[in-house]
């Protein structure tokens, strides 16, 4: 099969770019300090017994260290429990979420906090809030006709 010389060059450039991109994504996901992999918690639970299962039997903000918190949240159509959270500036928050009914999204607008909650699974990620402000937590997956009412607030003071 004849391949034009310029096409070989073009494909070679594409291939090198591809390897460079994948290496960057791979290093950031698996080998960087902050560990910027995708939220992929493998913990499971019974979606109909969420309220009886740790840590969701005690949802809310728990201080676990200097400027470090664990935020346990339950998602359901159409709300977050808890729905108002206050943390000091510079806090690192370990989010742990699950849903008691359908699939929901957990997004904090203007940050990289973004993950899915699917029934039967716990999802988690960590984020450090460096700036003061009123953050909007919203559900970004359709969960019923009241989906657009599903939001919560996180205040960093």
């Amino acid at each position, binding site marked *: *099969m*004849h*391949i*034009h010389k*310029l*096409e070989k060059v*073009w*494909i070679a450039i*594409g291939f090198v*770019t*591809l390897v460079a*991109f*994948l290496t960057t*994504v791979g290093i950031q*996901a*698996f080998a960087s300090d902050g560990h*910027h*992999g*995708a*939220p*992929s*918690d*493998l*913990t*499971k*639970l*019974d*979606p*109909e017994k969420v309220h009886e299962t740790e840590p969701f039997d005690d949802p809310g903000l728990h201080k676990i260290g200097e400027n470090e918190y664990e935020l346990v949240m339950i998602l359901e*159509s159409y709300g977050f429990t808890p729905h108002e959270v206050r943390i000091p500036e510079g806090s690192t928050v370990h989010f742990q979420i699950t849903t008691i009914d*359908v*699939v929901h999204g957990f*997004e*904090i*607008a*203007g940050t*990289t906090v*973004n*993950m*899915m909650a*699917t*029934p*039967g*699974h*716990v*999802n988690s990620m960590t984020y450090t809030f460096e700036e003061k*402000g*009123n953050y*909007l937590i*919203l*559900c*970004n997956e*359709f*969960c*019923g*006709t*009241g*989906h*657009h009412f599903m*939001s919560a607030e996180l205040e960093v003071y």
Partner: protein
Amino acid sequence: MVNALDARLSMYHFYTAFAALLIGGFFGLLQTLVRSEQLTLPVDLNYYQVLTAHGVLLALVFTTFFIFGFMYAGVVKTTGEFASHRRKAAWIGFVLMLIGTIMATTLILMNKATVLYTFYAPLQASPFFYIGLAFIIIGTYFAAYAIISQYRSWRKEHKGEKSPLFTFMAVATLVLWLIATIGVVTAVTLQYIPWSFGWTETINVALSRTLFWFFGHPLVYFWLLPAYMAWYVTVPKIIGGKIFSDSLARLAFLLFILFSIPVGFHHQLLEPGISEVWKYVQVVLTFAVIIPSLMTAFAMFASFEIAGREKGATGLLGWFKKLPWSDVRFLAPFIGMAFFIPAGAGGIINASHQMNQVVHNTIWVTGHFHITIGATVILTFFGISYWLIPHLKGRVLTKHINNLGKYQIVLWTVGMFIMSAAMHFSGLSGNPRRTQITSYNGHEAAASWGSYEVAMSVGGTLLLFSIFLFIGLMINLAFWAPKGSEEFPIGEEFEDTHQLPKLLENWKVWIAIAILLILIAYTIPVIDLIQDAPPGSPGYQFW
């Protein structure tokens, strides 16, 4: 000229496709008006019903009917008329698809299937919605039989010759489709239907999502490849040039089969229950699709340059001016190609773990697929329609309609540019997709989204006007335009290669590699999802 019986077969597909485009497009405008809070829907029609109908009618119905109408016409053009049993199979396929479409649409409008077109469990629609979807897919199997069996008998009768490029590409697209639909057919028949009838109490949600995306990503290539068929085979002829390389075109299609299926996890990057390692494996395979995409870009511009130079163009870029800009049959697909440059880059962003974190489920993603399917693909389909409808109806594309067609294309381009730009930009600051109202009681984080929502409605208005104009022109071309013979453009090769590398038409090898890649990418995570599943979910109807 395609014979009358096969022409009618294609035309019925186009009538259905264009009806779906009109209704689905109207629903699209309604959404932008509701989101920007300029319109309140009547109480018995909610936003999410309209959204479901928009997705089903445009992404599933319009595309599928148009694609089969186009493929039938091209296959018949390049391999001869259908044997009657194949034409019969194609009609059975059409009827099944139509029944499925009517069932699904009716249930959506009755508010019994407000689950959006991705129908994620455990939201539970009426079982007849899923049965309607199954009818559509079974219909496509009859259609695939007609084309693939036509191709096989052509090859038997033409031993040692290479198959017509158009038909080869149609078969490649169908091979991709047949493998891809295994995922959604499994989910619908073994999970959704028994569960929605109440025969099983719960559903394995993570598995259903994985099976859906096994299908969902190659689905977008099922839309894109017919556009590529037009680019590779018909556009070179329209511009008075040649097909740059027949064998590389075939190779690109085969690579799309390999790299569009074992990649569904990149839609599930933010989901629990799937390990990071398997997500990354599929991200690697996702990125590999860059290679056939770059080959396609090269082939297009090479054939543009060849055409321009044959018309006497000089200098490095002189050929660019020689392209037939005033011919709607070229203008439409060319703008589609131009849209694909940012669209492809956006796709790479979405598939990259860290950047996906910013845009996942924001309206950025909606913007992304409105410049892929909603610009690249549909502009190419518009371009095809301007010559194929008169070709099939024994009429001609007049200069007057060609000129109005250019306005239609420009209207679409401007509308889509405004709408998708607003979607992309507001998505970056978190504006969620699939959400009726995004003001969140005036929350400061959402303050900037309102003006983008208005921009989307301006774009959406232009898009609906473009659809009105398009439908009017199509009615004209089908029933009123002067009688005559409009060309079905089939390009010739730049350097005639009578002999193809045998490997290129050895389907067993390519299908085997495709299955191997699928097994590598999916076996272990799917076994995990089944064996190690949490208790399942009952159904919910939150509407």
